[in-house]
């Protein structure tokens, strides 16, 4: 089936299998591999994207459900000239990246948090990132990055 959607402000179309996830469509059909595919059951958050401005796991959205809707992926956060989004820059500056697999999801979730709550408490950060798993960093550097991004905003 043909799915038409807006990704990072641009119209796109893809021919999808009816049972296909938005994540699979983004990565394999539409050329947006930034959202990572790990658990495919909403546990890890590495596929986090914004669907009509709401943070969701792309693996739990049927591609057909995104038809006619707007999706923002991690690729859509950086400036048009390639300059990093403040959250991305903060992750670099704080050393919040080790293997990097969880990073796109954490960056999208952090951007979503700071848009809603520009100066979050530690508890708010913990809650907002509770759906994103990182197996390398132990989260301390990620917390540093979120605080850094909040301070710089």
């Amino acid at each position, binding site marked *: *089936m043909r799915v038409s959607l807006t990704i990072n402000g641009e119209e796109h179309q893809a021919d999808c299998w009816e049972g296909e996830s938005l994540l699979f469509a983004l990565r394999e059909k539409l050329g947006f591999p930034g959202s990572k595919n790990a658990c495919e059951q909403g546990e890890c958050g590495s596929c986090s994207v914004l669907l009509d401005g709401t943070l969701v*796991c792309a693996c739990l959205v*049927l591609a057909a459900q995104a038809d006619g809707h707007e999706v923002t992926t991690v690729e859509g956060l950086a400036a048009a000239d390639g300059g990093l989004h403040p959250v991305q820059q903060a992750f670099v500056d704080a050393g919040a990246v080790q293997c990097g697999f969880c990073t796109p999801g954490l960056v999208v979730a952090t951007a979503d948090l700071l848009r809603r709550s520009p100066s979050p408490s530690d508890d708010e950060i913990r809650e907002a990132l509770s759906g994103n798993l990182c197996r390398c960093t132990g989260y301390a550097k990620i917390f540093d990055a979120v605080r850094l991004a909040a301070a710089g905003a």
Partner: protein
Amino acid sequence: MEVLTPHTLVEALRMKSQHPGARPIQGGTDVMVALNFDHERPDALLNLNEVAELRGWSRDNGTLRLGSGLTYAEIENGELRDVLPALAEASRTVGSPQIRNRGTIGGNLATASPAGDALPPLLVEGAEVECASVRGARRIALEDFVTGVKRNALEPDELITAVLLTPSNAPQTFMKIGPRNAMVIAVVSLAVSGGEELRASFGSASPRPVLVTAPRDEADSFPERVAAAASPIDDVRGSERYRRHALRVLTHRALERVLA
């Protein structure tokens, strides 16, 4: 496989009548897992995301109508926090922000898992499930709607359209045991209210939702009564013995909160 995407409730009910095998999908937090892992290959998916009538909630005189498409995020962040505090507390414990932004109470009811977090607080509040088809609508008491582990009373041509209840405004709370605060399937959960009578219901401790009630002056024996009403099993998340003990302790703590 085909995807049916109705834009009105009338259209949705007509499609469900024409395709009774179609699997309804709203937030996708259960259905997509089944698809991603090849556990299910239904002939058709009925995408309910575009049906506005199923969204949000409304109040008619004293009765609340919670649309089956109402998300946990909407419950925990809006006015319902004050109207249905135990349901709001339960919603806060569901999955993660990403899951709560998509998961719905209609989906929780349809899945009918013994661990469904919305079920105990809704049962304590005397909720009914509104089911509709082209033949008309009917209301089913929540304890009758869930007929067994992951089984419900829906006819093949029916959809869950809403949850109806009259808020008790009684002091109430929800508790849940799991290895961490997020992404947890309850080892056991518990909703308790302390209005004119004591009311309790638990999750992950019986195949179907159970309501336990007692007069307020029998609070001392209530924890034992709740634990005795449970029929937990041993599984990967906990033992029968631990679950029953935990229910006793949680009920005691919940009563301290709601009778304070």
